[in-house]
C-alpha cells in the first residue's frame, strides 16, 4: 500500500514538475484572489484583521482547481481504469494522490502566507512559529485527504467541474474554521495569543484522523465502476 502510494505521489509530482500547471496557473490564480480580497474589503485595518481567513479561503479555492487537475491527469488516458484492471490497491492510490496534493498545497500555502505578510501586513513572530507550522501541516493533510476523496468520486463523470465544489466545500468547513483561528493565534491577529490556537489544532487533528481512515476505506468503492 505504501509502496504504491509513494510511486503514485512521485509520478504526480513528476508530471507537475514537467508540466508546471500549478506554478504557472494555480499560484497566479491564488495571488490574484488575494489582491481581489483587498479590493472587496477596501480598508487596511479590515484586511489586516481578516488576513488569516483570506489565506485559507484562497487556499480552498485553489484546492478545488488542484483537485480537478490531479484527477484530470488520471482520467485523460483512462489511467484509473488501467490501474484498477492491474489490481493496484485503491488505498495506495488514495494515499499517493493525497500525498502529492499535500505537497502542492503546502507550497501554495507558504506562498499565500508570504503574500499575506507583504500585502496585508500580517506579522510573523517567533513565539507562534511552532503553532503556525503544525497548523499548516495538519490543515494541508486534512484538505489533501478530503480533496482526493471527493475528487476521485467526481473524476470521470459528466458535470464534475460543478459537482466538486458543492461536495467538497461543506466538508472542509471545519478545516477553514480551525485553520483560520489557529493561524490568527499564531500571527497574533487582533490581540489573539498563541495558546488560543491549540484547541483548534486539536479539531484539525480529529479531522485528519477521521478522514484518513474514512477516506482509505471509502476510496475503493468510490472509484470502482
Amino acid at each position, binding site marked *: 500500500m505504501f509502496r504504491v502510494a509513494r510511486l503514485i505521489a512521485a509520478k504526480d509530482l513528476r508530471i507537475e514538475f514537467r508540466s508546471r500547471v500549478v506554478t504557472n496557473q494555480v499560484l497566479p490564480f491564488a495571488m490574484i484572489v488575494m489582491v481581489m480580497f483587498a479590493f472587496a474589503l477596501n480598508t487596511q485595518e479590515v484586511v489586516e484583521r481578516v488576513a488569516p481567513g483570506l489565506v485559507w479561503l484562497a487556499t480552498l479555492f485553489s484546492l478545488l482547481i488542484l483537485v480537478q487537475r490531479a484527477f484530470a491527469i488520471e482520467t485523460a488516458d483512462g489511467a484509473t481504469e488501467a490501474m484498477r484492471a492491474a489490481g493496484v490497491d485503491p488505498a495506495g492510490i488514495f494515499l499517493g494522490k493525497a500525498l502529492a496534493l499535500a505537497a502542492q498545497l503546502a507550497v501554495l500555502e507558504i506562498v499565500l502566507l508570504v503574500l499575506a505578510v507583504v500585502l496585508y501586513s500580517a506579522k510573523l513572530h517567533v513565539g507562534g512559529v511552532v503553532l503556525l507550522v503544525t497548523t499548516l501541516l495538519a490543515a494541508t493533510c486534512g484538505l489533501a485527504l478530503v480533496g482526493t*476523496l471527493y475528487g476521485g*468520486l467526481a473524476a470521470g*463523470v*459528466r*458535470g464534475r467541474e460543478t*459537482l466538486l465544489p*458543492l*461536495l467538497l466545500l*461543506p*466538508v472542509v*468547513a*471545519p478545516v477553514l*474554521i*480551525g485553520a483560520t*483561528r489557529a493561524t490568527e493565534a499564531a500571527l497574533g491577529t487582533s490581540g489573539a495569543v498563541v495558546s*488560543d490556537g491549540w*484547541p*483548534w489544532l486539536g*479539531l484539525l487533528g*480529529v*479531522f485528519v484522523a*477521521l*478522514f484518513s481512515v*474514512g477516506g482509505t476505506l*471509502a476510496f475503493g*468503492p*468510490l472509484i*470502482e*465502476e
Partner: protein
Amino acid sequence: MTDMQLTAGQPANANATAESFSKPTAKTSATGTPFTRILGIATVVSMALLVLFGLFLSPEDVVQGESVRILYIHVGTVWVAYVAFGVTALSSLAFLWKRTTSLTWDRIAGASAEVGVLFMALTLFAGAIWGRLAWGKFWVWDARVTTTAFLFITYIGYLAVRGLGGSHQQRGRRSAVVALLAVLEIPLVHFSVKLWRGLHQDSSVADTTKVKLHDLMLFSLFISLIAFTLLFVWLVMHRQRVLAMQDALEDKGLDYALEQRRSEGGL
C-alpha cells in the same frame, strides 16, 4: 415473476411491491396500495388536526405572541428532516452490507434524502421567518442553525451524486458511500461551529428549553410531529415506488435496445 405482477389497488406489502417493480416485466400503473391509502387518510386527518390545534385551539405565547404558531411547522419539519437523513444513512449501510444488499435500500435512501431536503428547506424557511419575528434577524450564527444549513447543502450534494448516471448498482454504491461520509462530516461541522461560537461570542439564541410550555402548545407540537412523520412515510413509500418504476423503465429501455440490435443482426 408473473405471480408478483401487480396492478393498481392489489394488496401487497411494500417490500414485495418494490422488488417486483424493479423487474422489467412488472406491469404497474400506480404506486398506491391499501396500506398507503390508509396512511394517506391518516396523514390528512392529522394535518387537519394540526391546523385546528396549531392555528385555533392553542393559545398565543406570552412573549412571542402569534409567531409561536410557526414552530408547529418548524419543529415537525426539522424532526422529519433529521429522521429522513438517518433513514438515508441506515439504508445506505444496508445497501453496502453484502448480506442485505438490494437496490430497494438504495431507492429508499434516495427517496428519504429527497423528502429530507424538502423538509429541511421548509425548516430553514419557517425558522428564518420565526427568527425575524422573535430575534429581529432572519439568521443567527448559532451552531444548530449553521449545522442545519450544512446538512441541507450536503444532502443536495448527495442528490446530485445520485443523478450522476451510470448503472443502478454504480449509483447505489457511489451514493451510499457519500451518504456515509456525510455521517462522518456533519458531527465534525457541528462540533467546529460550536467551538467557533463558544470561543468567540455568546450564542444570541434565547434558551428556549427553560420556557414552560402550555399544555395545549405541547399537544400541538406533538400532533405536528405525528402529522409530519406520517407525511414523511407516505411520501417516501410513494417516491420509492416511483424510483423503482423509473429503474425498471430504464432496464426495459436497455433490453429493448439490445433486442433491436439483435434483430438487426438477424436480418
